[in-house]
């Protein structure tokens, strides 16, 4: 009798333990899912800020950043969805959106830096030809005019013409 009661009690304990372990496992999974989503969100936000700073530098150098801005806006929209999903407690969607936002910016900074380099090179040649070149050209025209006038004046003096 006592043996039967003991085995029933053991069975009940085992059932309770199994139920409790499932509860703790689900709580732990939820917490890890939230942590994972928070981490992915922070990472995506950092990627967006880095990408924006790269675009800002490329823009300052005079690069055409319209293509980059399209991608950046797409990543920003995904990040917005990630933030909203996180606030609503939908951590799986938040994680998915954050990862997609970050993926959208893969290789973005390198591309922005390449555009910046090309723009700086272009800016340099534009300055050399259109600003420095044209100023030097104008000075040459004035100097050439003075030299021509001086030579013509000397020629006229030699031939006896009256040049004042």
């Amino acid at each position, binding site marked *: 009798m006592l043996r039967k009661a003991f085995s029933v009690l053991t069975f009940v304990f085992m059932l309770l333990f199994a139920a409790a372990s499932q509860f703790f496992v689900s709580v732990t999974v939820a917490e890890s899912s939230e942590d994972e989503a928070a981490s992915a969100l922070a990472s995506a936000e950092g990627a967006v800020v880095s990408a924006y700073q790269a675009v800002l530098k490329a*823009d300052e150098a005079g690069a055409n950043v319209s293509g980059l801005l399209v991608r950046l806006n797409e990543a920003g929209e995904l990040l*917005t969805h990630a933030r909203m999903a996180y606030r609503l407690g939908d951590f799986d969607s938040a994680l998915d959106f954050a990862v997609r936002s970050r993926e959208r910016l893969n290789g973005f900074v390198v591309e922005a830096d390449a555009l910046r380099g090309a723009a700086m090179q272009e800016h340099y040649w534009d300055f050399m030809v259109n600003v420095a070149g*044209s100023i030097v050209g104008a000075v040459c025209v004035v100097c050439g005019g003075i030299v021509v006038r001086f030579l013509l004046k000397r020629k006229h003096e030699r031939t006896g013409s009256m040049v004042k």
Partner: protein
Amino acid sequence: MSLYEHRVLFLTVTWILAFLVASPALSRLLVFPRTEFFTELWILDSNHRVDDYPFNVTRNQDYSVFLGIGNRLGYCAYYLVEVKFRNQTQPAPTSFGPPANRTPSSLPALFNITAFVADETVWETPLTFSFDYGYNEILSRVEFYSLTLNNVKVDMSDYTITWDSEKRGFFGYLFFELWIFNAATNSSQYHERSVGLRLNMTVY
């Protein structure tokens, strides 16, 4: 023909030629500098006009507007738009007066919109929203359940509007605050601009 007789002509031709050669440089140097740097923020109705904004709101009915930003800051900007809702007694943002007095509303944002806008360009997005709410006859007030903005449902269970006996209606304000990311401080700050819609929440 002597050089003396054509001296004026010679000098004129030389100077005109010099100016022609220098014109690419002059075109860059003689540009009137930009002196005003600002951002435009607007809402347009569903027809891209300003004469048919949603006003009388029915529960769970979709309404559409366009939100636009014009960047005239001289650089590519990173904007954040915070979508908020308030009743007649809750704090509104300030967009006028001395810059130090312009502050955002202390209410929490229901929704955020991110926009990267190049200098001298505009950015525009359609917004479709609807409110789910009920009328509490005992307390004579409108109690909100949720706002659905561009298919995203946001909880509004803390929001209520009481009857405005003066204007005879349940008036709420859906407003959009403009924030800008400051690359120097690595944070967003209120950009001293907001636009909003005054809405009459109908209960019957």
